[in-house]
């Protein structure tokens, strides 16, 4: 079994704000990230898959197929977008983005990788160089 990881980048703006809290509570909870005008990041996204190495190709996956899936399901929707306006019903924390990205990839996975292998293994997203958020497929 081997794990292959591909790194992608997208740039997007967001504002952390939830309608379930008051204006003051939002300001207190999210701090600078609650600025009503929003702000942006150059996100780094790592998508890992795992599976056996195919004896003919020597590869665990067709990397071009993974690139296409991530481009179509994630980057097209996230890159150079305002996440609050364009990704519905989501407080765009990196945690929620990771969950949203996982479910988008899971939706297209079986069609793009028929035969059961490789499996989606892990999503890691970083807003800046100083933070990172990671989930595995099982969590």
């Amino acid at each position, binding site marked *: *079994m*081997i794990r292959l990881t591909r790194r992608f980048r997208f740039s997007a703006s967001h504002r952390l704000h939830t309608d379930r809290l008051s204006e003051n509570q939002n300001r207190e909870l999210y701090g600078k990230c609650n600025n009503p005008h929003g702000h942006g990041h150059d996100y780094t996204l790592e998508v890992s898959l795992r599976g056996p*190495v195919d004896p003919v190709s020597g590869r665990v996956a067709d990397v071009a197929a993974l690139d296409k899936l991530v481009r179509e399901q994630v980057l097209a929707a996230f890159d150079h977008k305002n996440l609050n306006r364009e990704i519905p019903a989501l407080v765009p924390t990196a945690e929620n983005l990771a969950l949203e990205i996982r479910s988008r990839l899971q939706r297209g996975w079986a069609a793009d990788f028929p035969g059961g292998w490789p499996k989606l293994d892990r999503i890691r997203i970083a807003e800046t160089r100083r933070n990172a958020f990671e989930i595995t497929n099982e969590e």
Partner: protein
Amino acid sequence: MLITRRVEFSASHVCLNPQLSEEQNRAFYGPDANPHGHGHNYVVEVTLAGRPDPVTGMVFDLKRLKEILNAEVVEPMDHRFLNQEVPPFDRVIPTTENLAREIWRRVEAHFAVGPARLHAVRVYETEDLYVDYFGEAG
């Protein structure tokens, strides 16, 4: 506790399966199938698992780990054409996956009797593509 040592080497390779047609190779490997080869600055991270020794405070001597990685990986692979100069890549396609497995195979004997055991081999082909291998059991 996990400890990791990083080494780098630069090498050229071709990813091409002689059992497949030229078209199939190009479809699957893309520009990696160019028969003249191309190169990468590979980055290898080898991670060991173990407990710090009560006397030395070390899981494994990192100088020794560096010597092992230099002897088994960097010396034989740096500035080489992997397919032509570094067995088994004359018959095994030098994909990143197979490189990770080969590096594992080359170094694992050094950790067979402890004190640390080999936990993972990570190979970066580029900053944006890497594989992790945890051995046959992993």
